[in-house]
């Protein structure tokens, strides 16, 4: 176990090393591709190894660094929970490390500075890994802010467009607010536990009121980072503007770090559960899931769309966590564990397929230099491998068997379906409604990714540069493959992975899943074999067998078929312009759920007599939450600046007045 800890430290060291190394890319740009990014990959590998060891051994290792405050040196701690998240970070960053060299070739001739990119990537990774190991609030905050700050620089990397700068500012602002909320939450814990070390906090016995305050602060802070509705608005602005492999890290991993923080604080440090908290988390999660997917459907910028899907999936994760809180608070340990496991499972799943999808988007950006779905089309024939991996990503994120996304949603449903065991009808019905929303979300997600894949990869190219897109270099393909494979594995062999995951609830909650594999490794039976079972390997196996059988029986399936024109109702053969666009595809949904969006739809006549149709679907969160606060600050500032009127006599008057007032006070 100490070996695992030192392995994790090695990972951090490698990340920092890559940060240092990439400074040299100022002189020889190749360094970034050939040394720095592979180092991040290695660091990811080390993290993965450390995490796996921690998960399998299930022990706890601690250490101290001679840094930090004189009376509070940096405490490191590696347990199953952090081990699991180390695996998440490790896998994705390993894939990114393999992917990036190909992707970055294009950057070497760009105007943006390579050292900044490499350096902050390394720091970003190091920060995230350090958050996992932090065992006292001070180190946690340092690592957390290191993560936020370096990712801010990465978001602001292409800083020529003003939009990107705005996004970066908003991102950093929200991150800072969140961090302060978290700090405050730790403060509450610390003032009861008598110390900022996590061990002290664990011992703290908080009254319900203060515990709720701590919970609320942690939920707000981490939720802000994770992008929960209504604090999500920064996320779809910030994540897409970073370089794609960074977007993969941010959406795939950084959000998970927020999830980790929430679990660590609420489940581990506060260590008490109340159904009110569960309800809060459950409702917020459901709303995030639904609104996230709905807003995603409205996007036609691929990376923005994926970012909104992060909001959705984080929502699903928090649905799981909320149910876990609910069940644990009402004394249903097993069900709580099921929900908890479901959340964890979805966490790693989302990391995998969202990373995969962002890498795919990066590949498109790399070879076709296009982010707008409306200009894509027919990419499957241009870049078959990317097409295949992207398809896998789409199927997984749409929660379709036999891929991984389905397993976690299935588990979440299983937890929700045990609501009948709850005593209070209110809670039961809320859980049921949450399940309904989850189902709706899943179906809408499938619709959304039919749109994405159909518009981007199928049909015909809608613009010239997309028509001439070239396949991406092999390293980028390898990176995507590395994420696509586990998507399948986690879908086909859930029992194996749940066996690994079990260590986490065993350590955090004190009990694991007892009957998960009571019917053998082929059947996943989270609650009990009678309740529900899912033979993922069998489903996958039968699917493949039947497919192969079908193709073989109709052996002619392999034989090439005659080509002809598409059906054109007897008019001219269809042109790319006739294809359904992404906006058109989403139009029915926009009409059905119209009141959830802020839609401005205009048809204005152009100079040349033609008419121009513009559609703007924007997030309601802006008008409801963000702009009012901004206006408030602006007004306050305007009023305050009257103090600096410019006349020295007025200033003297202020001094005199202050003097008299003070004298009057003390006398």
């Amino acid at each position, binding site marked *: 176990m100490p070996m695992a800890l030192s392995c994790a430290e090695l990972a951090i060291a490698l990340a920092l090393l890559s940060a240092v190394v990439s400074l040299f890319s100022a002189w020889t740009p190749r360094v970034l591709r050939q040394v720095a990014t592979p180092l991040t990959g290695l660091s990811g590998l080390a993290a993965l190894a450390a995490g796996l060891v921690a998960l399998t051994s299930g022990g706890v290792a601690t250490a101290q660094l001679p840094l930090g405050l004189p009376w509070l040196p940096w405490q490191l701690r590696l347990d199953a929970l952090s081990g699991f998240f180390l695996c998440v970070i490790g896998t994705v960053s390993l894939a990114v490390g393999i992917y990036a060299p190909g992707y970055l070739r294009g950057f070497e001739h760009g105007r943006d*500075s390579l050292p900044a990119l490499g350096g902050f990537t390394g720091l970003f990774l190091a920060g995230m890994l350090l958050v996992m190991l932090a065992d006292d609030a001070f180190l946690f905050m340092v690592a957390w802010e290191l993560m936020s700050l370096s990712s801010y620089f990465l978001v602001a990397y292409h800083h020529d467009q003003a939009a990107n700068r705005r996004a970066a500012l908003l991102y950093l602002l929200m991150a800072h607010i969140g961090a302060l909320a978290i700090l*405050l939450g730790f403060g509450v814990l610390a003032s009861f536990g008598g110390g900022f070390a996590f061990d002290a906090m664990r011992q703290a016995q908080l009254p319900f009121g203060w515990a709720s305050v701590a919970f609320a602060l942690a939920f707000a802070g981490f939720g802000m980072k994770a992008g929960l509705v209504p604090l999500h608005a920064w996320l779809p602005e910030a994540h897409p503007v970073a370089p794609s492999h960074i977007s993969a890290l941010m959406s795939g991993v950084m959000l998970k770090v927020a999830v980790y923080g929430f679990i660590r604080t609420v489940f581990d440090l506060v260590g008490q559960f109340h159904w009110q908290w569960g309800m809060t988390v459950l409702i917020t999660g459901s709303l995030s899931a639904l609104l996230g997917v709905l807003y995603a459907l409205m996007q036609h910028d691929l990376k923005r769309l994926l970012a909104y899907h992060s909001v959705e999936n984080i929502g699903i994760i928090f649905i799981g966590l909320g149910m876990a809180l609910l069940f644990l608070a009402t004394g249903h340990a097993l069900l709580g564990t099921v929900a908890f496991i479901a959340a964890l499972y979805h966490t790693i799943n989302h990391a995998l397929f969202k990373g995969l999808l962002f890498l795919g988007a990066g590949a498109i950006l790399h070879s076709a230099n296009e982010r707008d779905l409306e200009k894509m089309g027919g990419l499957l024939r241009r870049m078959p491998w990317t097409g295949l991996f992207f398809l896998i990503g789409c199927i997984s994120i749409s929660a379709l068997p036999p891929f991984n996304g389905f397993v976690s949603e299935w588990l979440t449903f299983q937890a929700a379906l045990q609501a009948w065991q709850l005593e209070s009808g209110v809670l039961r019905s809320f859980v049921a409604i949450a399940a309904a929303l989850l189902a709706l979300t899943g179906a809408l997600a499938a619709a959304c990714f039919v749109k994405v894949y159909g518009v981007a990869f199928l049909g015909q190219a809608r613009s010239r540069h997309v028509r001439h897109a070239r396949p991406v270099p092999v390293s980028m393909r390898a990176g995507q493959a590395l994420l696509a494979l586990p998507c399948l594995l986690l879908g086909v062999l859930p029992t194996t992975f749940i066996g690994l995951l079990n260590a986490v609830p065993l350590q955090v909650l004190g009990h694991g899943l007892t009957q998960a594999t009571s019917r053998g490794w082929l059947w996943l039976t989270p609650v009990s074999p009678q309740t529900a079972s899912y033979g993922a390997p069998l489903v996958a196996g039968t699917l493949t067998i039947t497919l192969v059988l079908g193709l073989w029986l109709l052996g002619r399936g392999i034989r090439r078929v005659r080509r002809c024109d598409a059906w054109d109702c007897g008019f001219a053969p269809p042109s790319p312009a006739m294809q359904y666009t992404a906006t058109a595809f989403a139009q029915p949904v926009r009409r059905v759920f119209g009141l959830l969006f802020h839609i401005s739809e205009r048809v204005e006549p152009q100079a040349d007599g033609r008419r121009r149709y513009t559609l703007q679907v924007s997030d309601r969160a802006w008008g409801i939450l963000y702009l009012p606060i901004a206006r408030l600050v602006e007004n306050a500032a305007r009023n305050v600046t009257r103090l*600096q009127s410019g006349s020295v006599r007025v200033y003297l008057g202020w*001094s005199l007045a202050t003097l008299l007032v003070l004298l009057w006070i003390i006398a």
Partner: protein
Amino acid sequence: MTPALTVTVFTPLAGALLLAGVRRLDRAGLLNVLVSAVTFGAALALALEVAAREVVAGAGFRVDAFNIYLLVLTAFVGMTTSVFSRPYMQYVCATGMTSERGMRLYHVMFQLFIFTMLLALATDNLGVLWVAVEGATLATVLLVSLYRTPEAIEAAWKYFILCGVGIALALFGTVLLYFAAQHVIDDPAAGLSWSTLHELAPQLQPAIMSLAFVFLLIGYGTKVGLVPMHQWLPDAHSEGPTPMSAVLSGLLLNVALYAVVRLKMLVDGSLAGTPSAHLAGYLLMGFGLLSFLVAGLFLHRQRDIKRMFSYSSIEHMGLMTFAFGLGGPLATFGALLHMLVHSLTKSAIFITVGHAAHIAGTQSIDHIRGLLRTQPAVGWGLLIGVAAIAGFPPFGVFTSEFLLLSATMQSQPWFTVALLTGLVVAFAGLFRHLQPMVYGPVPEGQQPVQANMFPVLVHLGLVLWLGMAIPAFLAHWLDRATSLITGMHLL
């Protein structure tokens, strides 16, 4: 009076006299650096002495753990600033913004200013403290108007009048203090010695002491830049030459605050046991919080880069004042640390800002653009510096703010909300203006300049170090200072 102390305090004076005679500009610059370096060396030696024996006293001077680290800090920032100011002032002189005479004035006054700072820190006599602080105003006021632009002169006048009035009130407070002292101390000469007063504090008459403290607070508080007596500060900072702004923000404010804290210790001693025991503390907290919040809001509507950062100085001074008012070992430790890191960071920022303004040829925020592309060193310097001052780890400012926040949470939990709001508002105000300046494409015909970023590197490096780990000796140093101020050890 040990040699180290003598050298430390009086080297700048001698340097000023020497520099008055030097005509050649480059020589003057070198000599300036040299003198500051000697001062710094002596300060280090003095620090070692103090480390050896708790207190170095004599001839009306008294150096203990509290002021020694400020002495070293002052000498250090003075040195780095002089290093920066040499090429910078040559550029200023080259652009014809000032004359050879102006340059000589600059060098003399720079050293005189450092001298008054060191004197104010090292002396044990409250009267001398007053004289020194007033002297600091007199030394800098001509520098503020160095460029002779209408704005510069206006700024200087306001600076002069406001600080003059403030300091006059402080003198009245000092008189009252002396008045109170006379009834407990028969030797009139010792009546203003801080150490004596501190011993006899409990006997000092509370009514007079609180009266005196109000005057002293208003007086020195004007220098600290406490709202609503702060109005001179942004003007003086923005119109004076940049090295001046650096030392003003980095040192003068600290010294004024130091004076306030020393006096607070006396008042606390005398008021202890009376119903209004925490009067001084509450006053400081009130002023500190007010300055903190108001300055944060001011940041949002800045058009001049140096003004912006001077408001940020007010904000941080407010934070420290609040912390000192809060009392308690943790808060005091944090405040002392914050004093340290803020001076380092802020002077580094002002140095960078000087280069930035030099690149753009103006101080107007709207016309400073694309620094990263024009001159990465300056751009990153500014970016990192502001990130540090905004309280991002792993920089030291975060550490001190972390301590202050946790201290507040322990004693006055509800103030934390105000503090956090203030932090966020200030942060947003800084970055919304910072981003357009550093990012984006390069404007037409903007050229990199010959910039000396070494001091910035050193300062930020130190701040980073302090953020990662507080070295043991410094920790014990600050702890001893803490125990001096609060009577309680933290470690």
